[in-house]
């Protein structure tokens, strides 16, 4: 199998070349920077909440194809959802990337995410795929436990 078949699938390259929801939100309710210490990939996540609903989400990222594509897919997957539902999807995604034995498959709505399953075969790249999702989870958790957006955004 070639690298294109396993890792750099068309869907991934598409998101990589045209990342969705790329940019920043001026009046973000939540903002958090994420970092992959191993490779130096960085991103900044912006969330605009309406009560519990993710009304808007944007990502500024400097990263490899996997991390860029993953964050692009992440924004598509959680935009419009409640925070709880977003947490659910993020957990499912982490499950897909980290669980060696079980195979997670996303339904049609989130079909793009399935393209990232191939990353599992490249252990060092898993962190690239997880960066956006871990940042999302931390961002929501920080909001829940602290209710202190300013501090959160300064992390």
């Amino acid at each position, binding site marked *: 199998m070639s690298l294109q078949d396993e890792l750099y699938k068309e869907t991934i390259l598409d998101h990589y070349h045209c990342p969705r929801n790329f940019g920043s939100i001026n009046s973000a309710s939540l903002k958090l920077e994420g970092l992959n*210490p191993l490779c130096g990939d960085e991103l900044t996540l912006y969330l605009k909440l309406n009560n519990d609903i993710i009304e808007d989400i944007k990502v500024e990222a400097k990263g490899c194809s996997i991390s860029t594509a993953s964050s692009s897919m992440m924004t598509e997957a959680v935009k419009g959802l409640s925070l709880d539902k977003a947490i659910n999807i993020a957990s499912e995604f982490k499950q897909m990337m980290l669980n060696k034995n079980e195979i997670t498959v996303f339904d049609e709505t989130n079909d793009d995410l399935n393209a990232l399953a191939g990353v599992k075969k490249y*252990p*060092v790249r898993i962190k690239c795929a997880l960066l956006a999702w871990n940042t999302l989870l931390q961002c929501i958790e920080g909001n829940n436990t602290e209710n202190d957006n300013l501090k959160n955004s300064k992390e």
Partner: protein
Amino acid sequence: MLDVKKIKADFPILNQNVNGKRLVYLDNAATTQKPNCVIEAISDYYKIYNANIHRGIHTLSQKATQAYEDTRVATQNFIGAKASQEIIFTRNTTESINLIAYSYARFNLKPGDEILLTHMEHHANLVPWLELSKELGVKIKYIPLTADFRLDLSNLNQLITDKTKIVSVTLMSNVLGVINDLTAITELAHKFKAIVHVDAAQAVAHMPIDVKKLNCDFLSFSFHKILGPTGVGILWGREALLDSMPPFLTGGNMIASVYFDKVTFNELPYKFEAGTPDIANVIAAKTAIEYINNIGYKDIAKHESKLTAYALEKLSGQENIIFYGPVNTINRGSVISFNLKGLHPHDLGQVINEEGVAIRAGHHCCQPLMRLLDISGTIRASLYIYNDEDDIDILVKTLKNAYKVMGHVASR
């Protein structure tokens, strides 16, 4: 029951003559020999997938990283740890204890606090604390020994108080051979919120280690004492404890982000593993664990107990012998220390070596214990899975020769 002949065949070093005699290796408490599979695990690494780990994207690096982390998981299971990130790879037990002293004790103890040790500790579990006591003004106390070479716990209530912050004890003495029951100690220590470190360097070869059952907070050992390579030890610590500690050695791999004026640290276990580790040996350590697990501690204990009983009996027949340690097999491992009256252990050791028998003579890194016993050293025969009754018989025969060579000197 353990098949010694079959096991012996796995250890190439045993198949040789020393000083013209078959090598009888009875210095296992210092370091054990290595089976072929461990030696091969090292050369396989170098011949097939040698590469630096953790940050490499290429295939060799990924293979090496995987194998390195596999040993962490194998070690986790080996000692019943909750999570693999609780396993920190060090060079040896000594470094593990220094890590606790530098990164935990230095930040959590203040003048007047107390550290409790025992009179049977190895220098590795003495000197770091003595140095710390000088630096911080903390006090060192000791659990004394009974006449039959056991920990004397009768005054434990006075020894452990709310001043006690760290209790660090060996699970098995590398001189006396005794295995310590630590239940009362850990219970009382935890009642007073002291943390307990268990030095398992000597014990791990002889008995299964379960950090949950031991109810300790830190534990350390070296792989070279359980059939593994030199250069690899571990510190196990409760995750919350390790998380709360600042790093010890700093540099590459243990960081999250580095700027010219600030730095943030990586998560566990990497926070405590700076620089390129001893990759080959960490990987081969897993093979040592597998080899021991294949034999099983139950059979190891049975074999050792039988052999220790045989050795104690045969040695007891030797004129003028003085044992330092119990002359029975209750709660003791296969480490036997003794002297022959009127012979210096170094001279005796030399005579024994002449017959191809490798034993240790000296203070065994327990100088204070030697002073307590009022001797300059002992002869120590330590047995392991590849030793048999024949080895003991040869040892005993060499003793008979000693007075002939050296004569007898009344103690001066």
